[in-house]
């Protein structure tokens, strides 16, 4: 079971709250269109929890010049 599957399903109201917390005022039709896209993205990202990451560091790192 992945971390994401333990989380509550994302609803339109939850999405509205998350958007408002970020300063995004989205209309009902916008939220309706956005919700399946966000859900699809979250489902894809949830699969990453099964990746054998071990001690792997992110591939984007700060570099001094």
């Amino acid at each position, binding site marked *: 079971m992945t971390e994401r599957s333990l989380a509550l399903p994302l609803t339109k109201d939850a999405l509205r709250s998350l958007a408002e917390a970020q300063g995004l005022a989205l209309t009902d039709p916008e939220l309706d*269109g*956005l919700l399946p*896209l966000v859900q699809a*993205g979250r489902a*894809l990202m949830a699969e*990453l929890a099964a990746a054998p990451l071990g001690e792997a560091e992110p*591939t984007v790192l700060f*570099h001094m010049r």
Partner: protein
Amino acid sequence: MADLWWASMGELARLVATKAVSPVEVVRAHLDRIAALDGRLKAYITVMGDSALGAARAAESAVMAREALGPLHGVPVGLKDLYCTRGVKTTSGSRILGNWVPTEDATVVTRLIAAGAIVLGKLNMHEFAYGPEGLNAHYGDAWNPWDRATHRICGGSSSGSGAAVAAGICPGALGSDTGGSIRIPSSLCGLTGIKPTYGRVSRAGVLPLAWSLDHVGPMCRSAADCALMLGAMAGPDPRDPSASAVPVPHYVAALTGQVRGLRVGLLPSFVESAGAPQRQALGQAVKALEGLGASVRDVTLDQMKYAAGAAAAVISAESYAYHEGWLKTRAADYGPDTRQRLLVGAFVSGTDYLRGQRVRGLIRDEMDRALAEVDVLIAPTVPIAATPVGAREVTIDGRPQPVRPSLVRYTRPFNVSGHPAASVPCGFTAEGLPIGMQVIGRAFDEATVLRVADAYQRVTDWHTRRPPLDR
């Protein structure tokens, strides 16, 4: 000279250098053809007719004065409209930047001009490069030249580059590739295009979609022309900290035509899920490579199953980070589809993003291990052919599939891994629509990718076929 617009970039450079044609003649021929065809094709957002003719006259004077000439002297190029051009508006296919005029050129533009290239204009694209169909609500949807009757997508996001080069209204163009945006339109428009290794070509002055996935590369009508263009563009750049100092080989000299003994890995999972015409075309390409003396075997990449998730996390978060300000102040100026896609990134957590970046390391390492055993990998570029504009679903072997994820399925993994990957024409569907083969190489080994593509093109003629525009 007839049909100058179908001459290769290498041929044009030779004709100009030997005074067989004037650069003015070359540029005029292309401008005339743009005037004749682009009303329908919508490949260009801005045609730079006056400056192109001015540059052509200067190029002609240089030839007559016997000055040293660059490898692209007098050869026209087109630029996807996300490459900054000093004094010329650069829209990124958007209304947001509809009147923005940069004060300096992108590094690659400077380098192409230094090599003698003449910029014909700025090319249409999916708004802010965020879409594999290559559609544009603001500047019109580019028309795939391979179907005169049905308005089909060119593939994107570099759709104008695909339409323009395929239609002979520029001999080569710059695309950019974050999830397949060079290779998808190359496949759907019958072109050869290469996404080099991440870091091989500077991104300075290129408007971003996602900084860590964006790649800059050429789209041409042959691997030989891609080699010519890439050689003029590649190399370190102090303006781009991600640009690599790995030495740039002479790509044209690497085109020996020889692949005898080369070890080719076929990605069966990519082939099996492709449409029947794509599977069949790739099968024929395998035979052609074997006929040239290469050995082909199956290669399995277990970590590739994470590529879509990693790409989703990274592209969503990075693109939202770039657009957040405009999304809050000028939301109505985006096309509805682009705005919606960009907003998805507002709901990606920092943990999701970093997990995606960590997974990229796994995928890159697995690719490196696979490419220690073979010299290149091959796969279909896209599992489908160009769909009609507006189609959201396509059928593959009787199974309905959504168009958008189908377009990026085979290309996106190599943006995630950063390895170089080219698309090469390898056949046509029964409807006459082009099919592409992807050739993927080791990091910074674009030379082998181009050598394989060129050797294949020496024994096939798919890349020499032209769309039915002149009939």
